[in-house]
């Protein structure tokens, strides 16, 4: 966050600095740790979630996951995620059957729309699980993607 603070100071002075701290508090996932090694090295979605401080999740239909039913190539699986949940601050993505399920977190609390497009490697057919953080609570949804050619051997 060092860089963010600096640019904010340049842009808006003390007020901007305050605002930057404010938004940091609103995005607990990122505020907890820079690049959460424990979560990224976890071998199950559950362990990864724990490492991220996600202990309770609530199923939500307001998370849209657009991904292929069958991926042409597991090396490049396109995923669009949109959250309609008010106050969405972060989008977390897990490929449950990958050896390291946690793929990433996308912090949209500082001026981005709760949407992200990403492309992932999938070793085999798996649910793509999304967790959305909003107002200190965690919501979840998943979509199964079938893989005929695994994409992790490079």
């Amino acid at each position, binding site marked *: 966050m060092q*860089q*963010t603070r600096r*640019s*904010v100071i*340049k*842009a808006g002075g003390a007020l*901007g600095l305050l605002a*930057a701290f404010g938004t940091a508090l609103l995005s607990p996932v*990122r505020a907890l740790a*820079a*690049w*959460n090694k424990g979560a*990224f090295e976890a071998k199950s979605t559950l362990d990864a979630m724990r490492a991220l401080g996600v202990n309770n999740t609530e199923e939500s239909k307001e998370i849209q996951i657009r991904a292929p039913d069958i991926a042409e190539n597991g*090396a*490049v*699986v*396109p995923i669009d995620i949109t959250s309609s949940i008010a106050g969405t601050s972060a989008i977390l993505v897990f*490929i449950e059957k*990958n050896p*390291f399920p*946690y*793929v*990433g*977190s*996308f*912090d*949209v609390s*500082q*001026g*981005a*729309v709760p*949407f*992200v*497009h*990403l*492309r*992932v*490697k*999938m070793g085999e057919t798996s649910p793509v699980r999304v967790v959305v953080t909003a107002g200190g609570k965690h919501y979840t949804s998943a979509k199964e993607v079938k893989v005929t050619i695994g*994409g*992790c*051997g*490079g």
Partner: protein
Amino acid sequence: MADPMKIRATLQGDVADVRVLMAHPMETGQRKQGDKLVPLHFIQTISAQLNGRTVFNADISQAISRNPVFAFKVKGAKAGDKISVTWTDNKGEKRSDETEVRAGS
């Protein structure tokens, strides 16, 4: 030094649709070259700034596809604004590129 990114930012109302292509091997540490495994080499963090103000952050793993593609949407943008994107990888390599927000068609 890493190859440049390709960034496109197009306005849809006051939201900039930002699409980024990055040149990076995103090595999983599982790929073999000859008999040896190619070591882990992947982008870990991405941040985007609108006129210098951070608006989007991502932490990612090696499971993101080689030559990563991301899209996100930034509120409160107007034509001519500067969008910059920076990535950092696990070897500490870094790359920043910038583009101007363009009016949508």
